[in-house]
């Protein structure tokens, strides 16, 4: 019996302690007619040996293509200590740290994580994680509406340069609460939010303005200007950012005169493998004033009865298990283990290490633009500087070009046609620090060949 340790003898003695004869009697309160006989669609058990072989075949079957896709999930180097330590049984197989005294490892780690993440964002407070970047942004919108005391509207302005899937996800999560999302157009030349378009919104009321830095195109937004404008309108500023790049870029806490009010995004770049989209984690930071509106768990430092430092889950009165239908969110299980990995990642990289990676990502994006920008049939669409990603317009159907790359085991980027049809045959290409000069050269040659 895989994973079940009972011997025949033990089973009998346990049954008799209960006062029954058969295992089946354990279910005798269940209406007979409900009981099922078979679950035929479940295949018979396989041994670990056989399943290992099956899964190895499947994992290999998908190849290991050279990946130039980003669009919200970024391939980065992850030091091997990160997951080796996060996978230790004591982290891996523990529950949420409800019994604080028996969970000081996880609790202290989260406290350290909160410190690191708040530091990265230059914000006051961080929570212990939400599900992912997209759902965290939705929670940020809900939080902003709760927290905005100056302006009680349920209208939120969202830049059109925010990841389209994030916008879809916000919509799915907030739509039942009668919240209206209004899209801010972008500058088709610079590739970032159109400052000039703000004017037309000045008469309306907004609970919050949402922008992403760098935005979905990899371009930098004018964060100071946008933040100050939002604050002038009594709107809260919500910053969705790539956390890794905050080692180099101006962090949300420093945007404009007063800084963003809520910073969130996907923690994936900080130590989570691509893993087909998850598990990643949503991070969220905010200003002190609105911490009680924060969704998700928070760890605080306190003392034990001898005055020794220790850590506990705190501000639980915001949470569903106490406040129930009045909670700041329904979230319970979060993405703890990925946060564990992330804390270890940030500790290993340190401030200078992270900044170098950011700088290399910047340099590599520029190198790619340099390499392909002058190819016949390629137009680099946007002028704004940026990180990781850039948009190329091609003189052939994007799908045809992609097929040429696929045949060589290369994933050339993300096809923008569905989300931004106005950009034409546009491809969003991502280059992180993992790509070498040879990789970029190969990209260029393949593109040239595809366009020939």
């Amino acid at each position, binding site marked *: 019996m895989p994973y079940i340790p009972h011997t025949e003898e033990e089973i009998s003695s346990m049954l008799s302690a209960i006062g029954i004869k058969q295992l089946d009697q354990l279910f005798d309160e*269940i209406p007979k007619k409900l009981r099922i006989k078979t679950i035929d669609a479940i295949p018979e058990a396989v041994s670990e040996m056989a399943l290992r072989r099956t899964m190895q075949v499947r994992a290999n079957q998908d190849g290991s293509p050279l*990946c130039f896709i980003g669009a919200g999930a970024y391939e980065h180097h992850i030091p091997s200590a990160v997951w080796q330590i996060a996978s230790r049984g004591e982290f891996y197989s523990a529950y949420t740290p409800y019994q604080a005294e028996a969970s000081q490892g996880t609790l202290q780690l989260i406290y350290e994580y909160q410190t690191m993440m708040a530091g990265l964002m230059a914000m006051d407070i961080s929570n212990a994680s939400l599900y992912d970047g997209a759902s965290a942004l939705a929670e940020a919108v809900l939080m902003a509406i709760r927290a905005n005391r100056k302006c009680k509207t349920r209208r939120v302005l969202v830049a059109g340069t925010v990841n389209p899937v994030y916008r879809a996800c916000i919509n799915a999560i907030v739509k039942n609460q009668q919240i209206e999302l209004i899209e801010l157009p972008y500058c088709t030349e610079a590739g970032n939010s159109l400052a000039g378009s703000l004017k037309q919104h000045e008469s309306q009321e907004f609970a919050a303005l949402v922008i992403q830095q760098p935005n979905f195109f990899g371009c930098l937004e004018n964060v100071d200007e946008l933040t100050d404008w939002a604050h002038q309108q009594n709107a809260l500023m919500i910053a969705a950012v790539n956390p890794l790049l905050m080692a180099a870029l101006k962090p949300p806490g420093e945007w404009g005169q007063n800084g963003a009010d809520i910073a969130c995004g996907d923690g994936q770049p900080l130590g989570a493998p691509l*893993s087909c989209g998850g598990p990643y984690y949503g991070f969220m930071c905010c200003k002190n004033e609105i911490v009680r509106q924060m969704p998700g768990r928070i760890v605080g430092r306190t003392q034990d009865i001898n005055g020794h430092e220790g850590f506990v889950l705190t501000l639980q009165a915001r949470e569903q298990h106490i406040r129930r239908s009045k909670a700041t969110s*329904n979230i319970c299980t979060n993405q703890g*283990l990925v946060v564990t990995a992330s804390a270890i990642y940030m*500790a290993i990289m340190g401030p200078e290490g992270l900044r170098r990676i950011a700088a290399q990502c910047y340099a590599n994006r520029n190198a790619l633009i340099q390499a392909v920008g002058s190819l016949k049939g390629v137009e680099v669409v946007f002028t704004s500087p940026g990180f990781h990603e850039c948009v190329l317009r091609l003189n052939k159907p994007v799908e045809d070009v992609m097929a040429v790359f696929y045949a060589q085991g290369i994933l050339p980027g993300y096809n923008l046609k569905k989300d931004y049809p106005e950009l034409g045959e546009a491809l969003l290409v991502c280059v992180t620090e993992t790509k070498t000069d040879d990789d970029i050269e190969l990209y260029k040659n393949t593109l040239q060949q595809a366009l020939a």
Partner: protein
Amino acid sequence: MLIFNYSKAGRKTGSQSPNVSADTLLKSLPANSLRKSKLLLPEVSELEVVRHYTSLSKKNFSIDTHFYPLGSCTMKYNPRICNELAMLPGFLNHHPYAPLQFSQGLLQSLYELQEMLKEVSGMQGISLTPMAGAQGEFAGVAMIQAYHAARGDTQRKVILVPDAAHGTNPATAMMCGYQVKEIPTAEDGDVDIQALQAALGPDIAGIMLTNPSTLGVFERHIHEIADLVHQAGGLLYYDGANMNAILGKVRPGDMGFDVIHMNLHKTFSTPHGGGGPGAGAVGVGERLLPYLPVPVIGCNTDNQYYWMTEQEIPSSIGRLSGFMGNVGVLIRAYIYMRLLGRAGMPRIAEFASLNANYLQAKLKQLGFDMAYPKRRAGHEFVLTLKRQAKTCGVNAMAFAKRLLDKGFHAPTTYFPLLVPECLLIEPTETESKGELDRFLEAMAEILHEAETNAELVLGAPYSMPVQRLDDVRAAKELDLVWKAD
């Protein structure tokens, strides 16, 4: 010590980062886009990091180190093979937007997982995208909402939940824009049917139930409840957190539920990771099929697997995550289900129940009071220390903390809220009788201590890295982020 205490300004990490000058590379950027403030991350060596976090890990209780009978959490053994195979480079390095020809191995596994979950739940369609139980609940209630809306049935503003329900149920209903009405529990642990009948009406969108309930008992009138709610035009939501108790024995779909979530990180043994990640797959009956959150994995006639999106499911409630949820968790659950197989599923329910009922019977013998002493336990049961709290002044929390000293993680305390001074005890099927007997011994010892030396119990724990921590201070003098002095 905190990791920050090891930090030394100017320490270089070296082996990980590209050996480049960030200043030089970044200088072509506009100055006002750059970070000015110092970044407070620790400047430590890799050895210091490894040593610090290895040492921290040793301060945790976990399944791999301790019996962990935390009720409503299903802390069972997480087979190591699931971790190994889920971490194969082909899966880890898989970009979520990789084209289908580079994704068949992974998609096949996810598709087969959907099929298996359909079978054990008795539902018609599955979406794997919710990232935990609570998000599964959100998806489920949002589908109920969409269903009524599509029929123009717009006056249904209320979701019913039993008073024993997990906090995520009412919180979720609110997030979906519903009002919440609580239904009381009858003396025997089942839902108070009269109260339910009284509450039902044209404003009721649905009811959220856990079965076996969070009280550990199977709702015997489930058919009657289903009929009543359906007759009133409402739908039934099944909170699958307790599916371990009935796996392969009865199916929510057969009980009459329209929509369910399953906590794969409970029933299907993906690790809890100190708080997550989980996976809260949802299943639906025929009525809600059009509303499943996307993406869903499809399989076409050529046996090609593909992502079904808004295109194929136009009435979908939409997307709940940036990509498609916690794929890495889903693969672990898939592997676990394949290892257990057809015969393994009901065996889980049998032995989870055997262990729970054995503990319940033995604890009764030891003189403990059960909240529902006449009921069969599911995979967990509720013990109440109300009597001990009165007679010896030793409450459930003190019992729980004292268990830590004896080398056992505490059961869930003070939940469900309706049972005073309660412990919710869930041993799971992977614990041996030997371990259960050691736990019983510890419980007997503590009971004796409570009766003879209450102070001892009230001061616990003594053998943890810290003694009893001050929660009130933590919430009052908020210290959420470390600051250099």
